[in-house]
């Protein structure tokens, strides 16, 4: 499989901090997979994402995107934040088209791509609405569409669904998996919900606060499974992950 | 306030202008303090920048006496402030005048047309200027600027204005590169008198006529002294105002300090000056600066000349 991201011996120490938050960390992300990351609060999940996305410069080691070092934020790496960071002064269509506009695409191309994305996230009728009139779930769908508009190589989510209630979250999971299947996308999803990590991840990465150098990667038998078909081992599997986290 | 009703008056508050006048001289010469000490009354002086503020203080009852230009006295009269005019401190001379900048091309009154002329509104200078402009049919041909004296100097120095009607000490620096077109002394000669006067608050006057006489007597002493030997008086006034002798002398200029005897004998306070106030009032009301012209009766009621008449016998 083709490697999109290679994280090599990545160490990140924050300024004024004595101990590194990430310590010689290694990780590959391959095209078409969904990696979910789970770990306790403060273990360094966001730090890892920020480094891959180019917001933070590695103290040592490197992050490669298609073999090239990441030297800063890049439209090829999309990010969706927890509070979706949609721009309230723009309507839904303009939010989704924001990246394309910044990259000087012409109006027609933008319009066309926005229309397609609106269909894909089922928000065609909200095109001209402003963000404040949308529900939490709709906002997340707009944020996802915005991140996809640039057709990035990898889309990363930083606990993007944590603020949604369980039912809305389920809907978003379906949107994510639907897009993944139809568009052959690659996702990197940080979560603190084990069920979510299991449901969405081809691979589940467990991050522990003390020895972050060792990412435990778990192959996930329950990926994308219909919840009616879950067997009695599901709870055991879930518990085994829970125990590794603590 | 300290002078209400039955309570004995223990303090007298005098509103003063910061100029070397009779009040300054009699203060320095201890005439005033000696008199009030002997009456067991404290004297408090309150400085006002103009009669405008002094009038406000008369209304609010914060002062008992106030010295001001006669135009402000007219304002007090027409605003029905409970006060009486009891004294003429000085009849203005060349310590007020219209200065024009040298080299500004203003040679005669007609050259003033189209010029900016500054003066402190509501002052005697303002009135004198307006009278002059009217006489030369310039009233609507110049733009008048209402400025305090310090701002006039600033504007003059910057060259923002080339003419101003104002008074000493402001005139001195301006005369360095300017000259008089007319002074209040000239106006006085043309029978347009302006003067600084003292008003007493009605409530105080009714209750303490003796103190009013007493104070005027002290001021009159300075007037008499001034006419006998100006040097002593000017020196005293200069010391009081923290000025050099020559500064004080030029600030007093040719203003006249009439004694009570002169005021009585020349019928100054009973005829000449009321007539001037009447003209002033009429003019000001034409200018709509006051809402009605005071009648001769109002003016006669306003001027309480009995105190001067008493003193005049001395």
């Amino acid at each position: 499989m083709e490697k999109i991201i290679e994280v090599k011996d990545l160490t990140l120490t924050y300024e004024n901090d004595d101990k590194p938050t990430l310590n010689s960390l290694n990780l590959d992300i391959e095209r078409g997979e969904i990696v979910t990351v789970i770990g306790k609060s403060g273990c360094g999940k966001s730090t890892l994402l920020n480094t891959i996305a180019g917001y933070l410069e590695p103290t040592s080691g490197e992050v490669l995107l298609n073999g090239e070092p990441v030297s800063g934020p890049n439209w090829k790496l999309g990010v969706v934040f927890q509070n979706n960071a949609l721009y309230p002064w723009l309507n839904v269509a303009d939010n989704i088209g924001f990246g394309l506009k910044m990259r000087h695409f012409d109006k027609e191309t933008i319009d066309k791509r926005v229309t397609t994305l609106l269909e894909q996230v089922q928000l065609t009728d909200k095109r001209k609405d402003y963000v404040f009139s949308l529900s939490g779930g709709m906002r997340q769908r707009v944020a996802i569409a915005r991140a996809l508009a640039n057709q990035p190589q990898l889309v990363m989510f930083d606990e993007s669904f944590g603020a949604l209630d369980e039912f809305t979250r389920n809907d978003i999971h379906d949107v994510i998996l639907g897009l993944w299947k139809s568009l052959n996308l690659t996702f990197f999803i940080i979560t603190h919900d084990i069920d979510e990590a299991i449901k969405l991840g081809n691979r589940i990465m467990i991050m522990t606060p003390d020895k972050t150098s060792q990412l435990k990667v778990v192959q996930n038998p329950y990926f994308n499974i219909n919840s009616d078909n879950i067997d009695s081992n599901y709870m055991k599997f879930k518990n085994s992950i829970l125990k590794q986290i603590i | 306030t300290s002078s209400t009703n039955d309570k004995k008056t223990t303090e007298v508050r005098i509103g003063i202008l910061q100029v070397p006048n009779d009040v300054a001289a009699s203060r320095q010469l201890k005439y005033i303090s000696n008199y009030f000490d002997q009456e067991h009354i404290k004297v408090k002086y309150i400085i006002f920048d103009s009669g405008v503020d002094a009038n406000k203080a008369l209304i609010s009852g914060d002062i008992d006496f106030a010295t001001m230009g006669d135009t402000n006295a007219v304002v007090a009269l027409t605003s029905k402030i409970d006060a009486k005019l009891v004294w003429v401190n000085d009849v203005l001379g060349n310590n007020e005048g219209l200065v024009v900048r040298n080299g500004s091309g203003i040679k005669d009154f007609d050259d003033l047309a189209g010029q900016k002329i500054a003066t402190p509104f509501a002052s005697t200078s303002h009135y004198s200027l307006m009278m002059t402009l009217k006489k030369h049919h310039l009233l609507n041909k110049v733009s008048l600027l209402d400025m305090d004296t310090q701002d006039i100097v600033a504007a003059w120095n910057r060259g923002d204005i080339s003419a101003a009607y104002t008074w000493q000490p402001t005139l001195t620096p301006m005369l360095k590169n300017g000259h008089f077109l007319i002074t209040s002394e000239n106006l006085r000669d043309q029978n347009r008198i302006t003067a600084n006067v003292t008003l007493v608050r009605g409530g105080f006057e009714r209750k303490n006529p003796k103190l009013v006489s007493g104070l005027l007597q002290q001021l009159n002493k300075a007037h008499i002294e001034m006419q006998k030997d100006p040097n002593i008086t000017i020196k005293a006034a200069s010391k009081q105002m923290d000025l050099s002798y020559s500064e004080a002398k030029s600030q007093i200029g040719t203003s006249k300090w009439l004694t009570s005897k002169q005021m009585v004998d020349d019928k100054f306070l009973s005829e000449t000056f009321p007539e001037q106030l009447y003209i002033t009032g009429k003019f000001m009301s034409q200018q709509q600066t006051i809402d009605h012209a005071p009648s001769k009766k109002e003016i006669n009621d306003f001027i309480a000349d009995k105190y001067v008449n008493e003193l005049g016998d001395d």
Partner: protein
Amino acid sequence: MNSKGKKNYWLITIATWLLIFVAWQIATSFRMVPEILLPSPEKVVSTFVKLSEYGYNGIPLWQHFLITMARLLSAVFLAIVTAIPLGLISGRIKIVYSIFDSIIQFIRPIPPLAYYTILILWVGIGETSKVVLLYLAAFAPIYLACISGVNRVKDDYIKSAESLGASSKQVFFHVIFPSALPDIFTGIRTAVGMAYTTVVAAEMVAATYGIGWMIINASKYLKSDVMFVGIIILGITGVVLDQILKYIERKIVFWSGR
């Protein structure tokens, strides 16, 4: 707060004003206070009518009003076009901030009247000094609002824009500026308030028209009726101005607070 039973509270407000008016009427009708301290309502109204018809000092009342507004608004306009760029850049670039902030912090609290004479010495008695005085009063609120606006821009907004391919310049114009707009508007409203408070001071020197000048001039002749008219005009205008600004604010930064 209390969802049970909402009364028509504006009726109380109207009643309050009626009460004030009646008390004023009574106090003056029965000569409980001298005319000069408190002119009667009729007198104030008739003075207003007179001023509107014949003007004050030969100049119609509405011209006094317009010139005052013109001074105010041109000063605020100048403050807006200078303080917003400087404030936004200061909020973003620490060096610029270090250069300007302490100077502005130093000048800000100084009462305008304290330096008015110096200002006149420097720029003269014309319109310039008046507008500059108002400008100085209006500058700091906008500048400070811009800085706090920039500092409050959500980090995620900037990060998102960067990941979507925006350049630094694009981030500044397409993210930082609109993000800070609600704060900027609050700053502008404060600035108008500050300049408005200074309007009378500005017209105290060498003016011959303007509502502020009219009040000052009337006070020299103790015309309390004119002063009352002027004060009431300033009060009403102040409220109306703020409402207009609030309306514009709601239209432009419609998303704010939602």
